[in-house]
């Protein structure tokens, strides 16, 4: 193809992209003269170049369109949707012709007479002062894509007025002003143009490949340098190192493009949909300038377009429906993008009707994606996640704008292919929000090098959340359930896969279980994929290295576990693991919904546990057996009594490299009577204390039903295993050892505070730390409350959805996933718990925090360790609520 034509094509494609956006803007601001001149100029350039290159079809279409645009510019013709559609039609024709030209090198056969006539009619009628609306209308009704006649009539009326209203302005001033303004802009733009170069993508890609090689070579050199100390090469190599890093950064920058480039088509798409379906939609775009790698950009372009199209087509309702639902007639689709820790976040929000759960259910059943029973056990959120399943499309009929067989599963696959993730939240009737998280670049990534069975592998650092070292001797050990390894990571069970076994580098034992040495002295790479977290067991962990991702050879493409390969600093080839592939390989096919299910399971499990409490029974100082909630006890130890030392009149023992205070359970315990004594160790994150007892009896699961409240270190007595048992108050002992552990409090006040209320009041306790949860539950139970505990706000909200009612809610502030403030805002926003008193429990109780808490909707804000205040506050809050109810 002719070089000139090639250049023309590139240039024109760019101009056309701009024109699309500009025309939509123009439709909104018909009086924007600058915009008009810009559009006119672009069209003019296209026309001019076509004439020069001898492309008659393009030239005439562009010419006619330019004529009409000229009328807009001169203010003779009002900018109306009909005319804009006509211009769009011309643009589409130009695009089609350009496409053909690109493919075949010549203009295609055929003619554009029909379009030309339409443009001509508009032009002639607009040009003459005696524009006849009838003729114009005739021209439009002749046009197949003309809008309905009703709108036409309105347009006509407007048009008749326009020459009069607009006459003085376009007649004089603009004629003089516009060309000047146009010239000025042209001058400014060409100045900018001389500052930039048009470089073909191939050149940049090539450059990138070479820089990648350079980075690898540099890594190799540095590796050599590391082994050979004090070489004369070291200082030039350091310089080389820096220069290469800068170069890498520079070249990466050339590949960066504003995300707005991927959005350029969207205004046009949204406009077309709104006109076709008779909707009113406003598209708001923010953060267009956020830059990301062009390779990534290419990959997300189509998914984004698809999602916005979906929002406009399925999400936003018709104006009448919106009005009926009490929403503004104009629906809004918001696009926002920003950087967040090595990632780009793109949000797509609409205030449409949300995902219809019932419809989705039906669809799930017809497509056999789940059974009715399964669906019944699911929350609406889980059901909505089904839209990411292959072959799912909610549109009832295939419209021209969406439902072309590409579902959200394709969107998700595309995004996950580039190491991104997608989350969706949708509330029926309120709208939908998608959150896409994508890495900045794909070419050079930082990776963690690990070893399994003497083979090394690279894991992309982005997916790695943390590393845990494990050994059978320490408490960080792997447990197994029928040979399946799991690990307790901060009170969540982490599913594990052994890399050696996954790679078939090591055979499993005959019954498929893991062997002892498979679990000892290993590392767990805690990997996060969307919201699915799992652990990969590896033998060794080396450091992280910047690696250049190279695609694997074609014959290895089938192995999902590898996302590529690379050459390390020492020159060896290493395979790069794909966390997504590993998750798939281990049976976690669908990360989004299974997580929900597993969380659900966890919730059920916790529910079961909250009814029954594991209790440790022990004997101390004679009398009834004593019981303590097992979860409060960190460890059970046998200490040698001769190791006990005295410091500041209290007993201490050296324990795990520190001093742990010891406390006999009561005066009747003779600590020194035997060589060894059992000790219950209680600890939170920082401190430990040991409670010396006489014997450990058993561990039982029982409901604690405290019948006799007592004081002085006892919570009360309950029947456990058919025997009267004293349930001890751990807080009492903790406080004896360290005054800081809890604030000072009166021991007897709490039981009275609660008991004054009539009947059992229901308390919902939301607290992520099991220590405090177990601490507070018996305490509140003693005070006469019926306690339901949840370890996070999301689970608590599920209870709300399930229709549970409580008299008061006590919530922690610092919690993972959703903190107390957000939780309160959610509750106060719109739930049946709106009027339930909310009490915040926090270890931070600064005035600012308290203000924030009040703002979020907490009625009280109390420090975590202040039991007395907690109990008085609870009873106060409940009685206030009671009074308020009576008053209303």
């Amino acid at each position: 193809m002719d070089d000139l034509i090639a250049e023309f094509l590139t240039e024109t494609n760019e101009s056309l992209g701009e024109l699309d956006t500009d025309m939509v803007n123009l439709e909104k601001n018909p009086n924007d003269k600058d915009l008009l001149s810009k559009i006119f100029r672009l069209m003019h350039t296209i026309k001019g170049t076509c004439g020069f290159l001898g492309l008659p079809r393009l030239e005439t279409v562009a010419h006619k369109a330019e004529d009409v645009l000229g009328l807009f510019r001169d203010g003779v013709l009002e900018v109306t949707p009909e005319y804009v559609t006509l211009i769009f039609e011309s643009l589409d024709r130009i695009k089609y012709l350009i496409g053909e030209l690109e493919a075949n090198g010549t203009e295609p056969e055929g003619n554009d007479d029909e379009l030309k006539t339409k443009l001509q009619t508009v032009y002639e009628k607009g040009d003459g002062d005696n524009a006849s609306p009838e003729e114009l209308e005739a021209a439009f009704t002749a046009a197949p894509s003309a809008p309905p006649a009703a709108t036409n009539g309105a347009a006509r009326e407007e048009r008749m007025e326009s020459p009069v209203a607009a006459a003085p302005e376009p007649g004089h001033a603009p004629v003089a002003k516009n060309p000047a303004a146009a010239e000025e802009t042209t001058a400014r733009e060409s100045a900018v143009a001389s500052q930039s170069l048009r470089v073909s993508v191939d050149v940049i890609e090539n450059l990138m490949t070479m820089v990648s090689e350079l980075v690898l070579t540099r890594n190799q050199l540095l590796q050599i340098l590391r082994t050979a100390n004090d070489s004369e090469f070291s200082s030039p190599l350091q310089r080389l190192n820096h220069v290469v890093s800068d170069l890498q950064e520079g070249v990466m920058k050339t590949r960066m493009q504003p995300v707005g480039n991927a959005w350029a088509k969207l205004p046009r798409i949204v406009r077309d949909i709104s006109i076709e379906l008779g909707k009113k939609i406003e598209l708001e775009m923010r953060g267009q300038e956020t830059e990301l790698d062009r390779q990534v950009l290419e990959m997300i372009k189509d998914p984004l377009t698809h999602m916005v199209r979906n929002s406009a087509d399925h999400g936003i309702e018709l104006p009448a429906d919106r009005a009926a639902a009490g929403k503004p007639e104009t629906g809004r689709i918001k696009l926002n993008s920003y950087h967040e820790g090595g990632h780009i976040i793109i949000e797509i929000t609409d205030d449409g009707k949300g995902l219809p759960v019932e419809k989705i259910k039906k669809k799930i059943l017809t497509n056999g994606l789940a059974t009715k029973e399964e669906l019944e056990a699911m929350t609406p959120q889980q059901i909505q996640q089904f839209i990411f399943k292959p072959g799912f499309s909610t549109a009832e009929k295939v419209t021209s704008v969406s439902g072309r067989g590409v579902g959200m599963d394709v969107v998700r696959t595309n995004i996950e292919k580039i190491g991104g993730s997608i989350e969706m939240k949708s509330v029926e009737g309120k709208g939908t929000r998608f959150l896409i998280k994508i890495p900045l670049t794909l070419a050079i990534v930082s990776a963690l090098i690990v070893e399994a069975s003497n083979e090394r592998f690279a894991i992309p650092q982005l997916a790695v959340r943390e590393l845990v070292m494990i050994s059978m001797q320490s408490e960080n050990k792997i447990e197994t359930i029928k040979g399946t390894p799991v690990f307790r990571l901060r009170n969540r069970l982490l599913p594990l896969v052994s890399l050696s076994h996954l790679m078939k580098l090591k055979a499993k034992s005959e019954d498929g279980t893991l062997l002892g040495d498979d679990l000892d002295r290993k590392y767990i790479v805690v990997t996060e994929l969307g919201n699915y977290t799992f652990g990969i067991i590896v033998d060794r962990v080396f450091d992280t290295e910047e690696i250049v991702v190279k695609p694997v050879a074609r014959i290895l493409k089938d192995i999902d576990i590898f996302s590529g390969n690379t050459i390390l600093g020492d020159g060896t080839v290493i395979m790069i693991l794909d966390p997504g592939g590993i998750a798939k390989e281990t049976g976690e096919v669908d990360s989004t919904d299974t997580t929900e299910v597993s969380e659900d399971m966890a919730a059920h499990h916790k529910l079961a546990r909250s009814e029954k409490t594991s209790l440790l029974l022990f004997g101390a100082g004679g009398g009834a057996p004593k019981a303590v909630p097992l979860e409060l006890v960190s460890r059970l130890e046998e200490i040698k009594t001769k190791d006990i030392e005295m410091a500041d009149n209290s007993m201490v023992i050296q324990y795990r490299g520190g001093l742990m205070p010891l406390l006999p359970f009561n005066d009747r315990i003779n600590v020194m009577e035997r060589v060894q004594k059992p000790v219950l160790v209680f600890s939170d994150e920082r401190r430990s204390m040991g409670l010396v007892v006489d014997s450990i009896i058993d561990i039982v699961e029982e409901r604690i039903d405290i019948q006799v409240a007592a004081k002085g270190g006892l919570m009360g007595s309950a029947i456990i295993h058919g025997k009267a048992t004293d349930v001890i108050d751990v807080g009492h002992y903790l406080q004896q050892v360290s005054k800081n552990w809890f604030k000072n409090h009166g021991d007897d006040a709490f039981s009275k505070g609660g008991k004054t209320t009539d009947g059992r009041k229901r308390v919902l306790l939301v607290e992520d730390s099991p220590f405090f949860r177990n601490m507070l539950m018996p305490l509140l139970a003693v005070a006469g409350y019926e306690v339901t505990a949840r370890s996070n706000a999301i689970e608590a909200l599920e209870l709300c959805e399930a229709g549970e009612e409580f008299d008061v809610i006590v919530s922690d502030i610092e919690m993972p996933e959703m903190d107390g403030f957000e939780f309160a805002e959610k509750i106060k926003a719109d739930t049946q718990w709106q009027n339930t008193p909310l009490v915040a429990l926090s270890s931070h109780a600064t005035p600012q925090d308290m203000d924030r808490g009040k703002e979020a909707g907490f009625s009280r804000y109390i420090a975590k360790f202040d039991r007395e205040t907690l109990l008085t506050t609870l009873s106060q809050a409940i009685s206030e609520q009671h009074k308020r109810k009576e008053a209303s």
Partner: protein
Amino acid sequence: MKTADMSAEKRHHGVSSMRAANLETASDFLTIFIAGQIFGIPVLQVQDVLGAQRVTRIPLATPEVAGSLNLRGRIVTAIDVRCRLGLPRRETSQREMSVVVELEGELYSLIIDEVGDVMSLDSENFEGTPATLDPVWRNVSAGIYRLEKQLLVVLDVPKLLDKVHL
């Protein structure tokens, strides 16, 4: 590094034009030996001849894939040709060599027993693959040259590396 790439580039062009030409007129072959059998690879398709190399194993890959190695900054996939041809494994003491070829922009290192001379062969002595040959061999053979004392099998490299058969 750069010059090596450049020459590789040139050779690559040579190969593609070569591939287009009829094998019968191509006369230069690099001879290789596997389990005593002599094979020929069109010399223009050969990028490099290597001695034994340290390869990184690729778990889960088909057994024919011996691993991957770094050849001057490019990643090369090593193919065990013995395994591919259904021959017994090489004994550990036995020496091995590799012939590096390029296919569709990717480099492959064919692990074989030994590399012989480059031979200029006359198309007069060329014959098609006998239909009775072992199906695996028949598939990867581009024809047979009658040498004085033995028969040389011309390896069809693209077929040898064809993913479907691996």
